[in-house]
């Protein structure tokens, strides 16, 4: 907290303020004012604390103002990856974005993530996203009999793919990708991150199967290095770098 904010309120009290949420809404069954499937903006004015996140504000709306507001959330601590949404035109996790960091003086725009079909309000159909992930075969592929004990690797070998193990599959990167918006054929950044995690794992033997899939028309070559994914990732994964490493492996034939 800043010193000025603490100075203006009694000790121990968290400063509170009013914020306006402008939420992009859609009800597939329609409401009294809006037709079925019609998309529209709705504003809510609520009282919030400086410690509140966007998710807390959404809860306040849903629990106290309009129970029909639909959004996903589970752990509320930035781990489950359920509540990715477009907040002030940037993909973020609602549970990791503090209201006070968003200029509460202005309305805060909240939209569903782009490029995936909206089911209701902030809920999108994640199936195309998961289908891409399944295509890169996100499981350990080995040959020979399973060892009696765990498969060992050196800390350096583990370090090689550490960054891409952080993915929580929130779809913030994929739904920030301009190529993914235009073309449903593109795997999207997340699937490439998921593949990277196995391709550069010393214990895995399926790297060339995965690279072959990513060499396809819909694969890594559709990436135009816009860096939107790296900027969007709430886990700080260097997504564009991971994609470039996959491209390099395909170009050099070395992993």
């Amino acid at each position, binding site marked *: 907290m800043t010193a000025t904010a603490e100075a203006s309120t009694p000790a121990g009290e968290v400063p509170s303020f009013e914020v306006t949420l402008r939420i992009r809404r859609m009800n597939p069954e329609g409401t009294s004012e809006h037709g079925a499937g019609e998309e529209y903006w709705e504003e809510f004015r609520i009282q919030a604390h400086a410690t509140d996140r966007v998710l807390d504000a959404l809860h306040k709306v849903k629990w106290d103002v309009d129970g029909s507001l639909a959004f996903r959330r589970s752990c509320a601590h930035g781990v489950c990856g359920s509540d990715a949404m477009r907040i002030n035109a940037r993909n973020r996790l609602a549970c990791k974005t503090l209201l006070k960091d968003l200029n509460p003086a202005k309305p805060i725009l909240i939209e569903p993530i782009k490029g995936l079909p909206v089911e209701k309000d902030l809920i999108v159909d994640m199936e195309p996203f998961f289908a891409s992930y399944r295509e890169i075969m996100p499981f350990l592929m080995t040959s020979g009999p399973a060892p009696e004990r765990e498969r060992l690797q050196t800390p350096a070998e583990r370090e090689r793919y550490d960054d891409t193990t952080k993915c929580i599959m929130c779809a913030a990167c994929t739904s920030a990708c301009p190529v993914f918006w*235009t*073309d449903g054929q593109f795997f999207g950044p997340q699937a490439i991150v998921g593949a990277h995690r196995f391709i550069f794992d010393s214990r895995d033997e399926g790297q060339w199967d995965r690279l072959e899939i990513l*060499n396809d028309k819909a694969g890594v*070559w559709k990436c135009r290095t816009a860096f939107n994914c790296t900027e969007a990732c709430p886990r700080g994964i260097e997504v564009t770098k991971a994609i470039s490493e996959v*491209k390099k492996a395909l*170009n050099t034939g070395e992993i």
Partner: protein
Amino acid sequence: MMTAPQLSAPHERIRTGRMRHNAERWSWMFMRISGAILMLLIFTHLIVNLVLGEGVSQIDFAFVAGKWAAWYWQVADFLMLVLALIHGGNGMRLLINDYAHRTTTRKVLHSVLGVAVVAVIVLGSLVIWTFDPCPVDADPSLLPGFCASVAG
């Protein structure tokens, strides 16, 4: 004793128009390499034509004719023409793939693009390689200096 569940291979991937092996990889490689070469060619072109000598005012028929009388300028301009058109054409192809979702639309746009690229390359090559710097019956004051000796 419990055994680990066996994961069978996932179902056959559904793909529309699977590319020939590595085609998209070569396309990507071409874009990087031709882009770098084009930067060099274009900046050389701009500096030689617009900065060196008398600048923009020096460009007239004689200036162009004088350049194309040398084989290396012909090669440089031909390379710039071909690379720029294939580079740009390939970029347009990728955009068409992105935005044209219907197969027929995509095919039509791809054909139009291909015809345009080939036509401009052919016409441009003809100009560069069959260019006559000293056309007969032309005003000698407009021709490059060396034409006097050729005509004489």
